[in-house]
């Protein structure tokens, strides 16, 4: 027994020295090495190489440990071992900024050329939180509908027209479902992108908002919001144009960009798919589709111009980063035309620099060289709007709750009106509770409204 323990102890000591000894420390090649928390998309290598070329003395390495879960990066930053540059999606910025781990970029931004004026007007708001800029886009995305011309031909359905409306969409979808197919294959008219995506696009398309401009009240029970969710419900259960969760493969939760909708479309089983331009960088996987794709703006609703959600993957800087100067240079690089050029040729959504996305022909890239395909994305970004946030409640909590209630509607557990009413009440209750308990929010309230805070503020 003693011998066994002794042996194992020796083995352990050996392993320990071996393990520690072979750990490669940061490469000492004279350059500063930035840790960039992003997904391990192979396209990053090209982007990093270009960065190295422009800024000798600095380079970056992908740190995939976030794995889509911002909480891990958050904890790392909060305890001082975080990455230098952090990719932030949508609501993550508010969480990270509130946690105090993001560097306020405002003092550096205009000097170094990455203030909001350097990107699309519609994407500017998402860079700023409570008056301070915290990030700059790596890419910007807005959904259009891409369609498989082969399936349209197969069912003898005319292609969507550029300014089509919701009614046109329903008509086209029904034709796709009902017309006999020449090849004998049954196709889905529309690959479901998930309730949240659809609902948010519809909400923006109707000019709706999540909160009032001062962020004090949730307005998800507005007529626009009700109409948006009701529309989703109708398309699914009344017109039966969108497959219900119970009918088909729904969102696969396997990581990366693996949504079931993309699979359905890419395998040639669905005719239409709402997605951003970043689909192009997946095209190499589906050679059968090349040359047969068309794209069109999201259908417009209620006489308003077509509008969808603009989202961006934007990079921020860890406030405790030891390589702050180098990290700032990285953000400067993101604003540069060279970086945007890489994004354009890679097809990784829209480049942050609007100058390179002025027209369809300008966006032609390696995988999809039909300028007509690129044009709708250029147009969409002009009318797109982001989903708004409120400083009085965590954005990711709101997103989670919205997702829950949309899922309830999808599964016919609640009607859209009920769901939105309950959701709005829930969000407002939480806002009230947050205001009650946090003095910093009360100060913000007083700044915004000019009135002193009182616990009955919401009754007025």
């Amino acid at each position: 027994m003693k011998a066994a323990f002794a042996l194992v102890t020796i083995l352990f000591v050996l392993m320990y020295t071996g393990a520690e000894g072979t750990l490669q420390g940061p490469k000492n090649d004279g350059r500063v090495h930035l840790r960039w928390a992003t997904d391990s998309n192979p396209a990053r290598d090209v982007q990093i190489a270009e960065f190295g070329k422009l800024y000798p003395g600095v380079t970056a390495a992908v740190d995939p440990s976030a794995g889509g879960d911002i909480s891990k990066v958050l904890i790392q930053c909060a305890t001082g071992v975080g990455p230098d540059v952090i990719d932030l999606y949508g609501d993550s910025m508010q969480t990270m900024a509130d946690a105090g781990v993001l560097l306020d970029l405002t003092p550096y931004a205009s000097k170094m050329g990455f203030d909001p004026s350097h990107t699309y007007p519609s994407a500017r708001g998402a860079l700023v939180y409570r008056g301070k800029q915290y990030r700059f886009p790596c890419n910007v995305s807005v959904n259009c509908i891409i369609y498989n011309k082969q399936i349209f031909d197969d069912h003898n359905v005319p292609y969507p027209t550029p300014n089509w409306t919701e009614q046109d969409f329903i008509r086209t979808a029904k034709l796709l479902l009902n017309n006999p197919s020449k090849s004998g294959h049954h196709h889905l008219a529309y690959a479901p992108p998930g309730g949240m995506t659809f609902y948010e696009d519809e909400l923006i398309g109707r000019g709706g908002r999540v909160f009032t401009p001062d962020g004090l009240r949730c307005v998800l029970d507005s007529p626009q919001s009700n109409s948006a969710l009701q529309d989703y419900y109708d398309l699914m259960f009344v017109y039966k144009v969108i497959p219900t969760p119970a009918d088909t493969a729904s969102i696969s939760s396997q990581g990366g960009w693996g949504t079931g909708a993309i699979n359905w479309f890419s395998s040639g089983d669905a005719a239409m798919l709402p997605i951003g331009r970043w689909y192009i960088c997946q095209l190499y996987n589906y050679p059968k589709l090349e040359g047969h794709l068309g794209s069109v703006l999201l259908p417009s609703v209620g006489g308003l111009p077509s509008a969808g959600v603009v989202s961006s993957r934007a990079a921020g800087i860890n406030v405790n980063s030891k390589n702050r100067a180098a990290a700032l240079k990285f953000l400067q690089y993101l604003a540069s035309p060279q970086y945007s050029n890489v994004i354009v040729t890679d097809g990784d959504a829209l480049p942050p620099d609007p100058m390179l996305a002025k027209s369809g022909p300008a966006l032609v890239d390696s995988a999809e060289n039909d300028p007509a395909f690129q044009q709708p994305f250029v147009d969409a970004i002009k009318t797109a709007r982001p989903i708004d946030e409120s400083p009085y409640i965590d954005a990711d909590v709101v997103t989670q709750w919205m997702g829950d209630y949309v899922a309830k509607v999808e599964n016919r557990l609640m009607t859209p009106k009920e769901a939105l009413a309950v959701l709005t009440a829930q969000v407002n209750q939480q806002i009230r509770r947050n205001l009650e308990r946090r003095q910093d929010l009360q100060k913000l309230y007083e700044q915004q409204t000019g009135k002193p805070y009182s616990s009955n503020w919401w009754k007025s």
Partner: protein
Amino acid sequence: MNQNKSGIRRYGFLVRLLVLSVLGVVISLPFVWMVSASFKPRAEVENINLVPIHPTARNYPIVLSIVPDPGTGKFVPMQFGRWYFNSVFIAVGTTLFQVLTSALAAFAFSRLQWRGRDTVFLMYLATMMIPGVVLMIPNYQTMVLFHFINTYHGLIIPAAFSAFGTFLLRQFMLSISPALDEAATIDGASPWMIFWDIIMPLARPGVIALTIITFLGAYQSFFWPLIMLSDSQLYPMSVGMLTLDSSYGQQTELIMAATVMNVVPLIVIFVTCQKFLVSGLQLGGVKG
């Protein structure tokens, strides 16, 4: 009568054999599918067929970064060898410390009389009912304080103490007759000698059982390494698999190849050592 009985016995034996074999096949089906999927090319992974129509062994070199991924033309950024080593190393370290400290403590709880012994032991037991997740937060803060984040010792040391291990070994040791202690003491043995030369050999089944359980637990643990590590060189396989799945979640054949490589060594180890585990649990038994 005898003939009848042996006839029934034969019949019963066949039925049992049949049932057991069917159950065996059912339980191993997911593994079969896993192996089969790892030998399928990209285009075929979505089909139901168990036997690949165009079997390919290419997925394994791809996952091991020997051959580039044909889709992207680049190498998969995995470090399988290193991750394996890390898993084994961390598990060995954790097990070594846990078994040692638990055995020593179990000895103190079972063979020695001292004031407050049972109260302290009850404290140990009570803490087992606390959800582990909530201990992570203060432990993480402690790790930050000692600068143990992103290090090997930060992974091994907190996991090296277990109330469960102490509990298990205490139960085993309680079943050893105290007369042995007394005889040894009369013969002039120090408690240390009693521990090593008498108690430990007798508690061997329990020690082995604890070793296996601890090793398995440490090998499979993923949450603590996940929040502790940011340097991918230190990842154990469990965390490595997670990042592999989120980056390559769509490429089932690669994921399955990685999973097979993760699981097969465990199977081999188990098949060769399964005698010990079972005998350990059987001899000790569990006293309610």
